[in-house]
């Protein structure tokens, strides 16, 4: 018989994660991804971008990134966009995103710390 999933199972995930965090050295590679979700962004495909980030994070088992959404950010002509911020507060805005570009950004920027310059709008707090 198939196992019935209950929310209680989340406790085990929590316990397991706690042990891993204790063992793992924090490498200073923590990222925050922020995706604006105004009406125009949603109509331009922001939902698929949000979902692509979550899917790649799940697939690659990434523990160093948090994804949040926000409201309208005045980025209409270059939607959908995502803001990637590292632990030091360096912000990079990626524009005209597709799920494929999201995968590349996760693999390079979030996993290796390399900014994917060709998709960047501006690099405000750097250089």
């Amino acid at each position, binding site marked *: 018989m198939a196992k019935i*999933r209950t*929310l*209680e*199972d*989340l*406790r085990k*995930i*929590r316990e*397991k*994660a*706690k042990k891993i965090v204790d063992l793992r050295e924090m490498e200073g590679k923590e990222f925050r991804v922020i*995706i604006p*979700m*105004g*009406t*125009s962004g*949603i*109509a331009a495909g922001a*939902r698929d971008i*949000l*979902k692509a980030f*979550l899917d790649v*994070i*799940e697939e*690659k*088992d*990434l*523990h160093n*990134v*948090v*994804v*949040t*959404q926000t*409201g*309208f950010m005045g980025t209409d002509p270059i939607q959908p966009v995502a803001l990637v911020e590292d632990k030091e507060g360096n912000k990079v805005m990626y524009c005209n995103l597709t799920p494929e570009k999201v995968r590349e950004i996760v693999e390079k920027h979030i996993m290796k710390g390399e900014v994917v310059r060709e998709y960047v709008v501006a690099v405000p707090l750097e250089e």
Partner: protein
Amino acid sequence: MMEDLALNIMDVVQNSLAAGASRIEVEIEEDPVKDLLVIEVRDNGEGMSSEEVEQCQDPFYTTKREIKVGLGIPLFKEAAEHCDGSFVIESEKGVGTRLRAVFRLSHIDRPPLGDLEGTILSLMVTNPHVDFLFRYKGSGVFELDTREVKEMVEDLHLTHPEVLKFLREYMTEGMKEVRRAI
């Protein structure tokens, strides 16, 4: 136009978030007997005056005035009314807002619900400070309340890969049992 109703829901939830809601409830009911599909979104945000409720539904007012909601509401209303349905917003300042969109389930032009599961989950995990309740009434009832989820995971973030995996599977399995509408 929004391609599917899940996008309309996502858009309406943005208004609830902009209104500072700390709890948002999304409830969907299929009623094959009455041939209806009912979508209800409730929040405890700042609410609107009766004048603002009128204006947010009017596509010719919204873009010119300093009102927080854009074209999303008129698009949703138009879609519902076009499908022999109805669209009602009730709101009270300082209490919250309730939006109810009704579609004729079998109407040829009714947009599909689309990737409802993925859309709702994305909203839940990327707004960790807001409590979401999602309830789907089809051939049974599926419910997911992020208050319970947060109690279980404690300080673990909702976009932790294993939490994401668990929630996606939990949602997919639960919804497979109850959802019939496309």
